[in-house]
């Protein structure tokens, strides 16, 4: 009986884990990248992944989002609608968590989470979303800049900042749901794209570096204060 009880406990825990992971994750399929790119500009992905709606309701929801400023080509719209109506239909199971990515995580793929705000070319949107192109190297060059970039990914950033002469006063969401490998990969991506590069003497981000910043439970405001301590010019 005790053994059965134990099995029950472990199964329940497993189910909880399964379900929990499923909440924030999107199943593979055409349209997944578009959802990552488009929907997170204004709200977290949970607004998508927790829903189970029929196609016509998803259609109406997309229309409503367009009225809030979501810009889609008609092809993109059809792809997103198909994706949502397929994977988030009534009765659909929580998405299978993607296998924990190991060695070959593509930073470019993870960067799909970022495109909605920072743009494919890393330019951001002047006055609204700060650029990564030309800016990331200056952060890397500061003392503590590497750790701080990891903290922005894990805990978000909120409040007024100044980047290359423009001021921004928005919020960067936290991405604790990404694995250490994914965060290292995306940071390596933004550190080496669009003419960016690591300062001499610095190598790529490692999973261990990311792991070391987890569990600090910083608030986005604390991450903002930490930025002020970097001495960015």
């Amino acid at each position, binding site marked *: 009986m005790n053994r059965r009880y134990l099995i029950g406990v472990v199964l329940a*825990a497993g189910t909880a884990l399964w379900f929990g992971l499923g909440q924030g994750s999107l199943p593979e399929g055409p349209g997944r990248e578009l959802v990552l790119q488009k929907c997170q500009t204004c709200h*977290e992905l949970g607004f998508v992944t927790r829903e189970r709606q029929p196609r016509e309701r998803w259609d109406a929801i997309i229309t409503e989002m367009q009225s809030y400023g979501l810009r889609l080509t008609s092809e993109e719209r059809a792809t997103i609608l198909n994706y949502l109506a397929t994977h988030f239909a009534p009765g659909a199971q929580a998405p299978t968590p993607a296998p924990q990515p190991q060695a070959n995580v593509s930073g470019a793929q993870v960067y799909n989470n970022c495109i909605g705000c920072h743009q494919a070319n890393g330019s951001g949107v002047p006055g609204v979303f700060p650029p990564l192109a030309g800016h990331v190297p200056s952060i890397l060059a500061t003392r503590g800049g590497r750790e701080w970039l990891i903290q922005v990914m894990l805990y978000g950033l909120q409040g007024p900042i100044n980047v290359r002469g423009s001021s921004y006063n928005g*919020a960067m969401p936290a991405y604790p749901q990404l694995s250490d490998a994914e965060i290292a990969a995306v940071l390596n991506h933004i550190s080496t794209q669009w003419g960016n590069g690591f300062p001499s003497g610095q190598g790529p981000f490692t999973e261990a570096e990311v792991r070391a910043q987890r569990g600090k439970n910083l608030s986005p405001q604390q991450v903002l204060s930490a930025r002020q301590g970097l001495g960015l010019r």
Partner: protein
Amino acid sequence: MPRNHEHPLSEAMDRRLFLKRTAVAGAALGLMGRGLAQQQPTADQVVQGKNPKLVVLSSRPVVMESTLELLGSERITSKANLFVRNNIDLPGLNTTEPNVQPGWEVEITGLVDKPFKITVDELSKLPQTEVTTVLQCSGNGRSFFNPRPSGNPWTYGGVGQVTWRGVLLKTLLEAKGVKLDPKARFITMNASTQGGAQPYEKSYPISVMEHNSAMLALGMNGEPLPAVHGGPVRLVAAGTFGTANVKWITKVEFTEKESSGNEQVPRYRVPVLPGWNTPILPTQPGSRYNYTLDNSRSNWGANINSFILSPLPGSSVRGRLVEIRGVAWNDGLAPIESIEVSVDSGTTWRKAVIEGDHGKFGWYRWVAPRLLSPGEYEAMVRATDALGRTQPLNGNIWWNERGYEWNGVMRVKFTVT
């Protein structure tokens, strides 16, 4: 594996071994729990000063609900325990600290003879009024609708009772000697767009000035209004759902028509048949509804509701005397007269004792003492006001596409030992 082999093994597993093994399983659970917690940040990480026991439904925009246990732990819901439903987060304001901006301006405009602007500092020098109200998200209880409508999956925690302090709109217009145009039928309000925030616009019927103590609130629970709850200034109308209690208000416009913006239609509405005497037009659960200003109404006045706050669902309590306790409230138009409690799944009902209230817009606190033998029970509560308005036994009768205004009779299972 033969039974006779299995059996002795489990017999042989002594208490110590059992504890050891469950400890391992428990540790595994703990680790997993940690993993999950990292994914969804806790309430205090999302909004500085919030009780980590609040349940985060979204960290961006901020949506978090309180719990029955927390609601039952205090008469006035503290700022740490009060739910948050932001449609738009204003940068830097995810904190329960005040948002000190004495120069913040509110524009009073539209169908008035002399439009004007007033600062928070000037507002604070006008006569102040206090009102205790039940603040509730109109989506509270959404997760009990079946099939579940789209939207935040609120259970019971999108509610709280708070005391507002501020300047009545009536007082403000009088103090400024400003007259309303008789054509003014609605109040349309806008939240700040500072920091590049999206606009948020809502309308109230102008009657909230007369019946709902509509005010520009500067304080909550005896303190300056917390930033996350709309500080420095928020429009509050007692007895209404939270959605049109616009936070961070910058404009109050008197208008002939209600806003046609997204927040006014199709959002925050329930179907109605104009002229028919039913609060919500019943629609087929799961069906679609094409909301217009004419075939639906806004979530304005709160509907009558009651919650059991003790015993908590799934809890065990000592018998035989069990005090079932909770709260009831409505829109304040007429007093709540009767609160009935059943402990046999609705077969028999007995009146609870109303212990006290917090004014007509606040919670009526009630208690139903029962002598209960050990066993399993299901308690239910139903409030009725002097107008005969009450709660449906099956809340799903008012299923609506967007899942608003749930007030089905609450059921709580508990064990008496």
